[in-house]
């Protein structure tokens, strides 16, 4: 009894300590923020005549200048010291690797929180243990990756300091009021993560489990805030605010953080990190599945791969919409920046991006169709898969069609212009919006089929429900295609708004049809259990493909976002005068991205291997599930 009370006390103290750590940065920052606020007064006291005011370049408010102007750099060892190598490429590498690992370690604890919560609320004890084991497996991988993230962060800072001291000095001076908050939050994140991980075994039951779960919430709050702060730096570089036209800080740190692109970047990055994290964990599970020697292990890793893939795809589906929002805000901030991205220098990279997005959805659908094979009763859907393939391929082909093609003069003459007479029509946003929405709606449909694969609804209105669902999907497809065609006949300023009802149509399918399916399948008759582990090896390669495509696309989008600044360190404020202030060719960028992807996967394989060394120390000694006969994960899937 005394031991239990002691444990409870310890847990509450640990939780209290973590909350304290969480609040510490804010408490510590208050005086410094106050200093920031007082600074203008200090300037005033020194001499009323010396007070200089500046106008915020974005908010257009007046503020007292408290910072130095952005340095005017020159190409030389003072501002751009270098090795015998392109500094930008070195920085690109360090940045990208840090981002990959950072995204992974921010995403995985969110998965852990969700899965651990599912384990806590599940009434089935065996199932609860399986969820708990899965969450533990996830955090174990994340912990090893966490150390690498910190190391890469250090390398990144040293790279900045060594190769871009003037720029880094300026950025640090602007963000000085919150720099220490970032550092302290990193300490809080590390502390929470280690207590969360090492406390797993001690806090696995009852009230202590809830405390443990609360820790994961705190961990994720800290992680998310950390990411928001890091996003504010790139937001500032793209769309600066809180400074005047010379780049002088005007004393309002909130303006510096809350730039025009900060919120869309935050949303886009959270979703992207989650999709990426899901992809990496799914690839890990696929690798373990393929290397498994026993049916039991295959069943476990098959299930793990499915859960990770489902979580990743859940965030992949809204990701294109968050991307649209980000682009919309880019256009609203600087139309020229949007044109550079979508219609100019970087437009071809968007064609590659569209191809990658298509591959992501094709891989997801392929995996789901393969997964139908492990369910008895799902055969009825097999003959319809070819229609889904047709829809996906049509959507994909439209989505990747370029507006114009790079051609020789002879080819140009033969085609009669820059646009192909037929295919050129598909190279516009109206058609592309239709294409991607068809792809996403088809993915939703594949998921619905998968969720009802081995079940037969027993509700009295099941016939109407099935017909309604079919008609709803049919009408959704028609509405998406209709809006895409309608866009050709109306002016651009009206057309641009059609993307909103198109997205709403897709999301309606996602939310309403998932809900309807859930209600219909409540208490449904099972044709047979899901035979975890009885899935083709091809499906696991699809998961690996999914993860690789995520990684490649992340590298690509990061490059596009960064390149759009062109020859500016900080857009329109601080010019990049290094010899590398030009945009690379598409080929060079693609090679560099591929190298980053390859390096990440080789290094994460090492992380996986390290994680596997401690596998015998898992807190749940015996795996609770057996293939096929095990209680099925929530909702049967």
């Amino acid at each position: 009894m005394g031991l239990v009370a002691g444990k409870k006390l310890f847990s509450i103290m640990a939780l209290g300590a973590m909350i304290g750590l969480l609040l510490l940065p804010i408490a510590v920052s208050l005086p410094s923020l106050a200093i920031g606020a007082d600074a203008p007064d200090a300037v005033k006291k020194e001499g009323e005549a010396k007070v200089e005011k500046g106008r915020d370049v974005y908010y257009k408010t007046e503020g007292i200048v408290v910072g130095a102007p952005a340095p005017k750099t020159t190409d030389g060892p003072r501002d751009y010291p270098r090795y015998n190598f392109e500094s930008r490429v070195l920085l690109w590498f360090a940045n990208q690797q840090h981002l990959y690992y950072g995204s992974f370690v921010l995403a995985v604890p969110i998965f852990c929180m969700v899965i651990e919560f599912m384990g806590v609320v599940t009434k089935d004890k065996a199932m609860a243990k399986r969820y708990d084991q899965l969450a533990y497996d996830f955090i174990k991988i994340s912990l090893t990756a966490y150390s690498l993230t910190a190391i890469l962060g250090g390398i990144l800072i040293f790279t900045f300091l060594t190769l871009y001291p003037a720029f880094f000095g300026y950025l640090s001076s602007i963000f000085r009021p919150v720099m220490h908050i970032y550092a302290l939050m990193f300490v809080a994140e590390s502390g929470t993560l280690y207590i969360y991980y090492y406390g797993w075994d001690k806090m696995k039951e009852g009230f202590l489990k809830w405390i443990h779960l609360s820790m994961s919430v705190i961990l994720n709050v800290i992680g998310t805030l950390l990411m928001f702060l890091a996003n504010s730096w790139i937001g500032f570089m793209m769309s600066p605010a809180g400074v005047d036209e010379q780049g002088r800080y005007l004393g309002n740190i909130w303006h510096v953080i809350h730039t025009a692109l900060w919120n869309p970047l935050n949303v886009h990055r959270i979703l992207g990190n989650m999709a990426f994290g899901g992809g990496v964990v799914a690839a890990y599970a696929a690798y373990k599945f393929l290397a498994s020697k026993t049916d039991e292990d295959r069943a476990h890793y098959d299930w793990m791969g499915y859960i990770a893939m489902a979580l990743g795809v859940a965030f992949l589906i809204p990701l294109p919409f968050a991307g649209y929002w980000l682009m919309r805000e880019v256009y609203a901030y600087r139309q020229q920046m949007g044109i550079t991205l979508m219609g100019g220098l970087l437009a071809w990279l968007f064609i590659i991006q569209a191809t990658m997005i298509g591959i992501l959805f094709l891989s997801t659908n392929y995996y789901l169709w393969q997964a139908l094979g492990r369910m008895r009763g799902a055969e009825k859907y097999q003959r319809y898969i070819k229609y889904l393939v047709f829809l996906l391929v049509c959507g994909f082909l439209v989505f990747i069609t370029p507006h114009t093609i790079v051609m020789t003069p002879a080819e140009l003459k033969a085609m009669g212009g820059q646009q192909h007479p037929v295919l050129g029509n598909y190279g516009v946003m109206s058609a592309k919006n239709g294409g991607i929405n068809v792809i996403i709606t088809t993915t939703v449909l594949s998921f619905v089929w998968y969720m009802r694969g081995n079940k037969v609804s027993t509700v009295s209105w099941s016939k109407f429900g099935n017909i309604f669902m079919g008609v709803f999907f049919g009408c959704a497809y028609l509405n998406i295609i209709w809006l895409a065609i309608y866009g050709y006949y109306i002016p651009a300023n009206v057309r641009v708004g059609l993307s909103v009802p198109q997205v709403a149509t897709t999301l309606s399918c996602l939310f309403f049809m998932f809900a309807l399916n859930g209600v219909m399948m409540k208490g449904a008759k099972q044709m047979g259990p899901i035979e975890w582990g009885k899935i083709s090896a091809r499906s696991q390669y699809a998961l690996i493909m999914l993860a690789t495509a995520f990684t490649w696309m992340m590298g690509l989008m990061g490059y596009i976002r960064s390149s759009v600044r062109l020859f500016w360190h900080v857009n329109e404020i601080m010019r990049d005068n290094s010899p590398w202030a030009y945009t690379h060719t598409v080929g060079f960028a693609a090679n560099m991205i591929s190298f980053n992807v390859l390096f990440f996967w080789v290094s994460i394989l090492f992380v996986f291997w390290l994680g596997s060394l401690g596998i015998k120390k898992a807190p749940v000694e015996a795996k609770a599930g057996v293939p096929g006969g095990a209680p099925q994960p929530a909702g049967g899937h």
Partner: protein
Amino acid sequence: MGQTIVYVLVSLVICIAYFTAVDHFLMDSQGLDYWYLFRK
């Protein structure tokens, strides 16, 4: 068979009404006219 046709018709009416409402109101909320072409 008759019941199936009724179910299909009822579903069609609901879905067409729903998606038309989605198109109309979401364009309207952006200050745009969904029926632009038909009013011309």
